[in-house]
């Protein structure tokens, strides 16, 4: 795998010419830049965006983002540019259309249906209104009596030892 990454690096070095990218131009909104660069994946790393990476390919992509921002392009335009150039693989999350919607709808559906099922399950029996003593031999009188006795004992607890 490392060999492959190295190979990619070399290929990129040959096929592109990089230009200096120290700091951001004053005409670029840093928040927008971070938003866009944060949505593009670093092609040679695992799980990182180009923003967090200084691999050569990432620097190329960041420079391209900066250049397009200077041309006053919209966020969506820039993202579309990259996904047309490299495939939607370059986006860190797939666009919200077609079968990709599954990954958004499934969790939401799961949460709603599952949550609903649990509410139904707990509300099914007599709910909050039922008599807590129903299934036991206790009656409210016995319980109150026991509580009173317990409280009496508690008053004397300083004399009791564990």
């Amino acid at each position, binding site marked *: *795998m490392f060999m492959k990454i*190295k190979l990619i690096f070399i290929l990129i070095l040959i096929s592109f010419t990089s230009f200096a990218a*120290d*700091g951001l131009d004053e005409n670029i909104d840093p928040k927008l830049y971070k938003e866009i660069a*944060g*949505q593009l*994946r670093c092609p040679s790393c*695992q*799980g*990182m*965006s180009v923003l*967090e*990476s*200084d691999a050569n390919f990432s620097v190329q992509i960041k420079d391209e983002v900066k250049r397009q921002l200077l041309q006053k392009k919209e966020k969506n335009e820039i993202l579309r540019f990259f996904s047309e150039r490299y*495939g*939607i*693989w*370059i*986006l*860190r*999350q*797939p666009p919200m259309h077609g*079968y*990709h919607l*599954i*990954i958004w709808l*499934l*969790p939401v559906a*799961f*949460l709603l249906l*599952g*949550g609903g099922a*649990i509410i139904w399950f*707990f*509300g*099914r*029996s*007599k*709910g*909050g*209104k*039922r008599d*807590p003593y129903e*299934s036991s031999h206790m009656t409210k009188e016995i319980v109150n009596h026991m509580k009173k006795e317990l409280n009496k004992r*508690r008053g004397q*607890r300083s004399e009791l030892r*564990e």
Partner: protein
Amino acid sequence: MVANFGFFLLFLALNLSIYGFFASFLSVRLKHYKLFLSAKHALHAVSLLTVGASMILVALFVLRDYSAFYVYKHSSNDLPLFYTITAFWASLEGSHLLWTLLLTLCGSLSVKVYAAENKQLIPFVLGIYHLVMVWMLYMAITHSDPFIVNLPKPENGTGMNELLQNPLMAVHPPLLFMGYAALVVPFAYGLATLFYGDIPVGFLKSIRRWTLFAWILLTASIALGGVWAYVELGWGGYWAWDPVENSSFLPWLVVTALIHTLILQEKFDDFKKLSIILCLIGFFLTFFGTFLTRSGIISSVHSFADSTIGPNYLIFLSLVAVLSLILYGLRAYIIPSGTNKNFSGISKEFFMVMGLFILFAFFVIVFIGTVFPLLSEVMMSEKISIQAPYFNTFAPYVGFLLALGIAVSVLLPYGEPRLTNIGIRVAIAAAVISLLLTGVIYFQIAHSSVEPLEIIGYSLSLFVLASLVGGLFLKLKNIGFRIGGLFHYRLAYVGSFVAHCGFVVMVIGLLGNYRKVETDLVLEVGKPVVFADYQFQMVKNVTPSHVDNHILYSLPIEVKKGGELVSRMTPSQSLYFTNREQTFNEVAVSSNLWHDIYLVLKSWDEPSRSRATVSIYINPGVMLVWIAVILMILGGAISLFDVHKNRVRWKV
């Protein structure tokens, strides 16, 4: 040569496991006690043989015997002794052997010492251990063999992966595999109850201990992985939602849910089938995670087909899944449900089940995010990426829902169908206090722009904290404020209190990510640069020094704030003799409770070495995250020692 003995020991162990598997199931069928005993001893023998094989591998490393291919591949003459030993688990074959070893040790221990109430389950449990061992050992002598011979013997090895030469990476894999291995016990018990058709009294206690043990180890190892990524990879973060991290997080979520269903099962003598299915899923996920990360399927579906390990894992995984599901489907109805149907309405149980469900939903989300790119590539032949932004869309809301669930449920007593008066009063007080505190925080940092989610997060975590304290107050009130009693009789409660405090601190720490700032600065000797209130000053030139097996280029920097020295930091880069093409970051971190200063040496002017580029990150809340993990582990450990929950009649 010696390597062949290791192979032989594993081969012997495999044969014994095959025997043990048949012997244990036959012993039930034939009601033959001595056959059962022989199967049990077979498991102990398998343990001893695996220990022997592992010791041979360690010896091969220490003696630098490069006639063993694995040793040749993952160590070299200049590797320090410590890393020479930890190179044992530097790659697939060795970590497979380590996992096998820990699995069989957990298995042996849990059939050596078990609760007398469980004795009807033990033959089934034994059989399942043997079955797992058969597969592990089969892999260890075929596709994942650490004892392949490499002749003629080379003079030097090719060296250990430089990223793994770090104390954290030395400890992380054994802890993780120990956690994975411990999950075999709940799995085997879960399946055994299905075979046996009932849940004995001791089931809960045995499972509870092993699950908590596994949870503690998983928590610790995931956190260590995070610390490692933070200090070694140099991108300023500790969690990237990459598939390797996700695959260790998935079992953690399920095991966390399992711990809570076990509590419900204890209180209500119900939710048994839920516990069983979570036991099964938890263990399945440990193999699933290894399959994802080690078969190469993540980087490309095609590299998966080339490896022999991937398809084998896939077969084993489907076997485990299908067999468990069939058994569950056929036998689960026999498991008696509870007689006590006292849960309903807006009660503690309701909020706990909701919380569990949220945990499980989080598991589903992470699972979808990890697996969907594979499915998309296989089924739609379209390569897509699902990375941090996807998970981060859901994570805050999941965290908030969990916080709500915890906040309400810690205030309520079990089995009361409605909010008790005192609970409501405390909850309202807690909400008010947290809102007030949030207001204070908001106006304190209102100068900078604050994300709404961040503020919601703070108020919810304060709400949970206030509820926890309120819950503690109610508990203490119930026992007449004898704090000693809490430690005597309710140690598990104390543990849960500490662990949930850990959750609160974790949320607060994670919210720090909203305030993260970073920049790249060029430093020169004698020219201090200011960033985020701190002044960074290069003390002297980049200096190379020779350490063990690498050259360390270090850049001493003084960090000042308001003229006062905050810290001296030396971000560095290492150049290893075994890998001349790449340098590795040794980041410098200076932490206080609220934020870290995190420096990465990027590059320097070569002949003069007096000018260097440094990445500077100010990371708020990182220390809180580590503290949170320590609290969680501490809480788990405290609960583990609750003797009243563990009291069983021991059978040795």
